[in-house]
């Protein structure tokens, strides 16, 4: 497949340029990464073919790598890349004498007429939004949605995505190729869904971004406990989505949630070990991100159409609003979890609520609630946070033997290195 070949070629070229001229190599790489999503989306819109768009984008990058180190990065690099890539695509279609067919297919796939007069978006909307809905289409497997979004909108290479999700490169390559084939064969459209379908489809896009962020924030496997390339990419894509859909409160809520979580990243791991919220050095929190997150939460409150991500963001706003752990407004946290439980009556939400209850009514009351949960939701037994929460409550109640068992149970199912380090130390400190 051309894509794999060009993936390597691009990486190699970047390395060559970077070694000759480190600053321009980095600059070109940055421009390309920033412009990639828009470039692909524009080409897909024009030619109706993802493979062709990717090949043309790759050729444009090669051209940039040849030209820009000498001439400097042009004033409008995105425009330069788009024009160059479109010309390469037309050349190729002309060579393959497929141009008319492709253009006709593109016109069929890409419907420029606004859908229903009630559609909230005008036809001039950003093409990346259309591509996001295509990549996150419910007809694609969830893991394929994540991979395609990172590949086509994030501009990550197949090896990078494979590494991030700890799957072999060939597996990830096949997953992406298969998804692209389905998009083409089943004619998954490039467009923003109609108003009636929009809430459900936006939820699918948000779920993909949230999963990408979480895989970065709570990375599985033996490597780094936090993969900043994934958290950063999720935030970047969430910012684009928010910019494109400023009036969707759940989009605002997700961005706020990611920013308020990211703000605590530096303070959350010390010496390879997880630092719990109440032990974190709040001076190490990123105040700028917190201010931005709080502002977004206020905007959600003003719209007053609460949803899952908005409530999670509000909970994080309460935490980041407290100057010290002692001053946390736990009754507010518990109330927000109650609100969340009404939307999403999952045992995980109830578990998180119990943590707030421990602060309000003491560990004994919380433990009774936590123990009650597993009876109705046996699935919690395979969730490390369930055992970690129990272990902490038992420790606070001085029930060391039971706490030790709970720490062991948590360690048996915990897959993040920093959390494992934390649980191991806590277990060792039991008397």
């Amino acid at each position, binding site marked *: 497949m051309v894509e794999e070949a060009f993936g390597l070629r691009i990486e190699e070229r970047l390395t060559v340029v970077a070694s000759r001229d480190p600053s321009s190599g980095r600059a070109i790489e940055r421009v390309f990464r920033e412009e990639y999503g828009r470039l692909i989306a524009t080409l897909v819109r024009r030619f109706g073919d993802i493979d062709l768009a990717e090949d043309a984008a790759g050729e444009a990058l090669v051209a940039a790598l040849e030209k820009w180190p000498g001439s400097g990065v042009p004033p409008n690099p995105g425009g330069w890349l788009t024009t160059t890539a479109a010309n390469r695509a037309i050349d190729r279609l002309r060579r393959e004498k*497929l141009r008319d*067919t492709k253009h006709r297919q593109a016109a*069929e*796939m890409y*419907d420029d007429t606004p859908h229903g007069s009630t559609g909230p978006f005008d036809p001039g909307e950003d093409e990346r939004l259309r591509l996001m809905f295509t990549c996150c*289409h419910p*007809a694609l497997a969830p893991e394929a949605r994540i991979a395609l979004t990172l590949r086509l909108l994030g501009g990550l290479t197949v090896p990078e995505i494979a590494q991030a999700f700890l799957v072999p490169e060939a597996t990830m390559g096949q997953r992406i190729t298969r998804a692209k084939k389905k998009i083409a*064969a*089943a*004619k*998954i*459209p490039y467009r923003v*869904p109609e108003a009636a*379908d929009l809430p459900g489809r936006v939820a699918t896009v948000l779920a993909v971004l949230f999963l990408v962020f979480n895989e970065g924030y709570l990375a599985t496997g033996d490597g780094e406990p936090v993969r900043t390339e994934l958290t950063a990419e999720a935030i970047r894509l969430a910012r684009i989505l928010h910019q494109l859909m400023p009036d969707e409160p759940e989009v605002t809520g997700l961005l706020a949630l990611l920013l308020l979580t990211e703000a605590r990243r530096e303070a959350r791991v010390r010496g390879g070990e997880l630092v719990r919220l109440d032990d974190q050095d709040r001076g190490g929190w990123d105040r700028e991100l917190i201010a931005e997150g709080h502002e977004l939460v206020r905007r959600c409150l003003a719209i007053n159409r609460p949803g899952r991500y908005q409530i999670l963001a509000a909970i994080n706003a309460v935490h980041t609003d407290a100057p010290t752990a002692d001053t946390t407004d736990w009754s507010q946290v518990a109330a927000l979890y109650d609100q969340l439980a009404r939307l999403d009556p999952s045992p995980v939400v109830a578990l998180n609520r119990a943590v707030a209850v421990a602060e309000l009514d003491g560990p004994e009351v919380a433990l009774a609630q936590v123990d009650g949960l597993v009876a109705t939701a046996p699935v919690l037994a395979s969730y490390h946070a369930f055992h970690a929460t129990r272990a902490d409550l038992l420790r606070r109640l001085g029930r060391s033997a039971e706490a030790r068992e709970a720490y062991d149970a948590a360690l048996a199912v915990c897959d993040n290195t920093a959390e494992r380090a934390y649980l191991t130390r806590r277990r060792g400190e039991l008397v």
Partner: protein
Amino acid sequence: MPHYLLAVHGSEEDYASIPEDEVQEMYAATGRFNDKVREAGIWVFAGGLEPAETATVVDGTGETPVVTDGPYLETKEHIGGFWIIDAPDLDAALTWAAEGSKACGGKVEVRPFQSEPA
């Protein structure tokens, strides 16, 4: 426009346990859905199938055709009927499939036909 196969899958045992008046209502709802598909101008073909036990498999790949009784797949769930429609894209096909599924009371698999060579 591309053609899509909307195939209804289900277990014949489950179907057999549905009370007669509900079955009649499903037929009526399916009839109304068929009318709607025709009115929308996307009808290519549709039909319900006799039970899978009436199926016969023919293997004509060898020198002489081999004929065997029974459906090709030994599963509990079989295709019970299908529509072929002409829809602009998958989203449109999925919307029709959802409505057809509700009418006939079965799960619907949506598959695109190969496009004709340009």
